[in-house]
Each structure stands twice: as structure tokens, then as C-alpha cells.
């Protein structure tokens, strides 16, 4: 064995002959060895207190030795140094017993030679190293457990608490004096008792099984606390042989959760009530409005000969249509929020625009408008047809309403691909808006940016609702007296 460092040996030996022999062996084994020789146990204890040694060689038959208790004292003071017992044949049994106390090895003096001694010392040192590593690891592990704010407890299959960490005790108000060493089932909240017990029984059936549970547990003089705990079956693990409970106090979280749930429930109820109110109000308004429309439809104003009456009836007609439009817009807003199942179809832009232009013939003819379209790179989308129609009608009416009186209205409608998505651009050369004033509010409900009698402030809100209902988005760019461009991005839906 090559050791550069000086090797320190404490040799406790009262027989001079034996001492010389061992000293010879040691000098033969080690290049550089420092031997401290003690004749008596008493001296050895003093030396051990003062100095550190690499190995302690201990003769058992010392004048002042009294068996195991003195060996324990040596072991205690030797700290990290391995202790090897040297023994005569007479006390071999005692030597064997000392192994249990923590002695590294015993050597019978008659059988010792340099080789035997060298082997015993180096094995002892190596073994001791590993023992130290293991014990340090355990210390570290224990300190983690002891300092964790989680509680840890080891519970046997019959419910006996084998170990419990200090925080673990604190969390459940564990008191050794009152506790009989068993997990207190009666402290579980009656609502959770059956669940915890059945979970525990389920876990102990299967090695390696792990379960997470939340339950209420009674804390003496305090009341119930909400605990969250894992139950981990390590009964088969030879190092543990227990169900490991790792638990924490979640009372605060639970209380907040409960409060939040109550709040959510209230909000849902209020929301449902408001929606219902919306439906009832709309219905109650709609019934007379549809009657009005029907009356207007059935009224043949051509048959009225008095001009003033005819003019009034015509005004009554258009007021009824206006009322109906406004109401329908409001209902649409209400319904978009509710409608869960949208009809997705592949729709051609060109066809929808043409259909729209046909429907809006009257409106479109009143102004001189030039419309150009270009859909060749992205001719269609998958979308709800009624929504797309409604979106286009709203965009057309917007452009017409806010056309510039100074020039012919020009509308350009184009589409293009943007990755997977499709973008529809609707551009006009109308009055435009100052984007600084508009920005975030443009798609809001009842936001009006022009002083126009027929501006209701609902169209763009409606468009946005319809676009976003299917995961798309809408943006706007505008310049005063230049025009406005709406860009609608449609998500690529699959049918």
C-alpha cells in the first residue's frame, strides 16, 4: 500500500513482545507510519480525545479493560477511524461479539503477519469510507425531511406510526403523550373517513402504489384542517417497510377555492339570469315589432288617396323597418354569444359577394359605386355562411354610409393566404377615421365615430363577434379622407 501521507496508528497493547511484533509489521507495510503506543485503555482514551488516527489497533486483554463498555468508549472517540481488535485465543468469543458493536475486524494474534494486518487495515479503511458516505447521506436526507415544511410519516400496514417528521407533527398537532403510536382514524372528518381508509387499504395491497388525497383532519383544540397527502406503498422496500405519507396543510387554499367556487356559481347564475332577461326582453319587443312589420307588409299604401296620410303611412313603414333592423342586430349580438354549434361550410368569396350585391341592390344603386374583387389565390374559406353574409352586409353598408361626398365610392375586396389562415381585405375610399381617436374602441358596442343619423354603433361589434366566434380576428386601418381597410383573418377550419 502506497501512502504519501504519514499514516497515524494508535496501538493499544500491554504486551511488549506483541507491541514490537506489530510495530515491525506496520513499518514493513507503510512507508511512513507514526505509531502512538498506549499500554492502558485509560491512556488510549486520552490520546483519542487529543488526536486523530487513521486506524486504532486494540488489544482486548488490557489490565484496565472491562469488556464491552470500554470498547464502546474507544469506538465513540475513534470517530471516523476504523477500530481493529487484536486478540489472544482466550477471548476470541468476546472479539467476535465486538463486531456487533462496530469494530471493523478482529485478528487472532497467533495468526497475524504483515499481509494479514495490511489487508485488515486497508479493508477497514475502505469499509469505513463507505459507511461514512452512507451515514452522511442519511444525515442529509434526514435534514431535508426534518426541515421540509411538508410533513412526512411512515405508517405500517396496521396503521402504527413508525416515524414522523417534526413538521409532520406540527401539521397534525401530533402529541406523543396523547398518541398511542397509531394513526388516529377518529380524527379524520366523518365525511372523509371512509375514503381515506379505503384508499389506505387499496394502497397497501399493491407495492409501489401511490395515491394523492385531500381530506379534513381534526387538530386538537383547533378544529379541522384540510390536508393533502400522498400515500406511497413502500412496504416491500426492505429499507423502508412502510407506507410513506407526505402531507401538507392546504386549509388556506381550500378556503379560497371554496370562496372562489361560490363566487363563480353566483356569477354564472347572474349571467344566466341576464341572458334569460335578454331573451325575454327581446322576445317581448320582437313580437309587436314583427306584427308591425306584417301590418306594414299587408298595408297597400298605393290605395291611399290622401297624400298626407300616404306620406305618414310610408314614414310609419320605414320607421318600422328601422326598429326591426336595430332589434335584429341586438338579438344577433345576444345569439352569437350563445350559439355553440355553428354551421361550417366551404364558402366561395365571389359567390357570397355577388349574392350580397344582389341583396343590397337597392342600397348599392342609390350611390354610384365601383366594386372590384380579386380572390384568385384564396377563393374560399370554411365558415358559417350566414355569418359571412352578415359580415359583408355590414361592411358594405358601412362603406356606403361613410362614403365621401367628394368622390365616387370605390370598394376593393381581396383575399390572400397567410400561412394556414385566409385574410379577407375590404377597402374603401370613404371618409375614413382618425386612428388615434378610434384604436381600441372601434369594435366596441355602441361606439360611433361619425355623426350620422343611421349610425347605430353596432355593426362592427357584430362583425367582430362573428369573426372571433370562429377563432378569427379583425383589424382596421384608416386615414381621414383617404378611406378605411378592414382585414379579417379566418382560421383554417376543417370540415
Amino acid at each position, binding site marked *: 500500500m502506497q501512502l504519501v501521507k504519514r499514516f497515524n496508528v494508535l496501538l493499544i497493547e500491554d504486551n511488549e513482545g506483541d507491541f514490537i511484533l506489530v510495530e515491525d509489521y506496520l513499518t514493513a507495510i507503510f512507508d511512513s507510519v507514526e505509531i502512538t503506543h498506549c499500554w492502558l485503555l485509560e491512556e488510549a482514551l486520552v490520546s483519542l480525545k487529543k488526536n486523530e488516527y487513521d486506524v486504532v489497533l486494540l488489544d482486548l486483554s488490557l489490565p484496565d479493560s472491562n469488556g464491552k463498555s470500554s470498547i464502546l468508549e474507544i469506538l465513540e472517540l475513534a470517530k471516523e477511524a476504523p477500530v481493529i481488535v487484536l486478540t489472544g485465543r482466550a477471548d476470541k468469543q468476546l472479539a467476535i461479539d465486538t463486531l456487533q458493536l462496530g469494530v471493523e475486524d478482529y485478528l487472532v494474534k497467533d495468526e497475524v503477519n504483515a499481509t494479514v494486518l495490511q489487508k485488515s487495515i486497508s479493508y477497514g479503511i475502505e469499509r469505513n469510507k463507505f459507511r461514512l458516505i452512507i451515514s452522511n447521506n442519511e444525515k442529509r436526507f434526514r435534514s431535508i425531511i426534518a426541515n421540509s415544511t411538508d410533513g412526512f410519516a411512515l405508517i405500517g400496514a396496521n396503521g402504527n406510526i413508525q416515524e414522523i417528521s417534526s413538521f409532520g407533527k406540527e401539521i397534525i398537532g401530533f402529541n406523543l403523550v396523547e398518541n398511542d403510536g397509531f394513526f388516529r382514524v377518529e380524527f379524520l372528518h366523518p365525511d372523509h373517513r371512509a375514503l381515506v381508509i379505503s384508499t389506505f387499504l387499496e394502497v397497501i395491497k399493491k407495492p409501489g402504489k401511490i395515491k394523492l388525497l385531500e381530506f379534513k383532519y381534526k387538530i386538537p383544540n383547533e378544529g379541522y384542517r384540510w390536508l393533502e397527502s400522498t400515500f406511497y406503498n413502500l412496504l416491500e422496500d426492505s429499507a423502508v417497510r412502510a407506507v410513506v405519507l407526505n402531507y401538507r396543510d392546504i386549509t388556506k387554499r381550500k378556503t379560497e377555492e371554496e370562496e372562489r367556487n361560490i363566487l363563480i356559481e353566483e356569477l354564472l347564475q347572474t349571467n344566466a339570469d341576464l341572458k334569460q332577461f335578454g*331573451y325575454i326582453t*327581446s*322576445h317581448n319587443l*320582437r*313580437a*309587436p315589432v*314583427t*306584427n308591425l312589420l*306584417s*301590418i306594414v*307588409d*299587408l298595408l297597400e299604401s298605393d290605395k291611399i288617396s290622401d297624400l298626407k296620410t300616404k306620406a305618414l303611412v310610408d314614414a310609419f313603414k320605414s320607421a318600422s323597418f328601422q326598429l326591426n333592423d336595430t332589434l335584429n342586430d341586438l*338579438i344577433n349580438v*345576444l*345569439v352569437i354569444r*350563445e*350559439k355553440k*354549434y355553428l354551421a361550417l361550410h366551404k364558402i366561395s368569396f365571389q359567390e357570397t359577394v355577388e349574392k350580397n350585391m344582389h341583396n343590397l341592390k337597392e342600397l348599392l344603386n342609390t350611390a354610384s359605386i365601383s366594386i372590384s374583387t380579386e380572390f384568385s389565390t384564396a377563393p374560399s374559406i370554411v365558415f358559417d355562411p350566414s355569418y359571412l353574409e352578415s359580415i359583408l352586409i355590414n361592411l358594405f353598408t358601412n362603406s356606403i354610409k361613410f362614403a365621401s361626398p367628394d368622390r365616387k365610392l370605390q370598394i376593393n375586396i381581396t383575399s390572400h393566404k397567410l400561412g394556414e389562415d385566409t385574410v379577407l381585405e375590404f377597402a374603401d375610399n370613404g371618409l375614413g377615421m382618425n386612428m388615434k381617436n378610434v384604436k381600441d374602441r372601434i369594435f366596441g358596442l355602441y361606439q360611433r365615430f361619425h355623426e350620422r343619423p343611421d349610425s347605430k354603433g353596432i355593426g362592427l361589434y357584430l362583425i367582430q363577434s362573428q369573426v372571433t366566434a370562429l377563432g378569427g380576428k379583425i383589424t382596421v386601418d384608416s386615414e381621414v379622407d383617404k378611406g378605411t381597410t378592414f382585414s379579417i383573418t379566418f382560421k383554417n377550419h376543417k370540415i
Partner: protein
Amino acid sequence: MIEDDSITQMLNKMVMKHTQFCDSVEVVSNGDMAIEYLENFILNGIKNSLKKPDLILLDLNMPVMDGWEFLEMYKQKYASHFPDTKILILSSTVNPKDEERASQDPFIIGFENKPLSYNSTNGLKELSFLAPFFN
């Protein structure tokens, strides 16, 4: 026609007359009165020369007994007496759930906005259940 609003009643009748939709109309103001009519028909129909309805126009939002309540009771107790009678919802409801529910109900052949118009009434004539009456 089960309809509580008198103006709608009048308008529906005018439109049906103009479009020659039916030979006769019996009007009741809510589900309860409709049940009464059906009961009466089953007991004394022939004696009192009551007409068996070919089509029931049913409003949904009505006082006393609304359209859905009427429909449930009709299915349980009366449908078997009127195997050839069809039901059409005629309502101004804005709740999409009503339309969805109507489309899933095998007793309901259609859903129309009230009051009837010339267009909608002529459209009804093309429904497969009603078409035979107009050939």
C-alpha cells in the same frame, strides 16, 4: 292556432285567408284552452260537429300554459287520438335553444317566425307533410 296575441291572431288569419292556406281556423289563446278543445273534440267531436285539426300552429311564449308544456301534455295524452295532425311552431322566440329543441322533436314539422307572411305561408305549402293538401 294556439296564440295569445290578438293582433298576431288577426294577421295570421288574414294571411292564411289571402294565401288560401286552409279551409277553417280555430283560435285558442293558450295551451290550456287548446287542451280543453282537444278534450272536447275527443268526447263530443262528432256530436258538436267540431273539426279535427290537420295542423296545429303553436306559439311558445304564452301565459297559463306555454307551448312546450302544451307539447309535453299533447304527446302524453292526445297524440294517439290525432295520428294525422301535424304541429308547426310559430313563435317570435329569440332563444336559439328553442329552435334546437324544435328541430329534435319528431312531432314538430317546422319552425316559423310569427306572424305569418305571404312568403312564409306559401313556403309552408311545400313542406312534405302539407304538400298533399295543395296538389
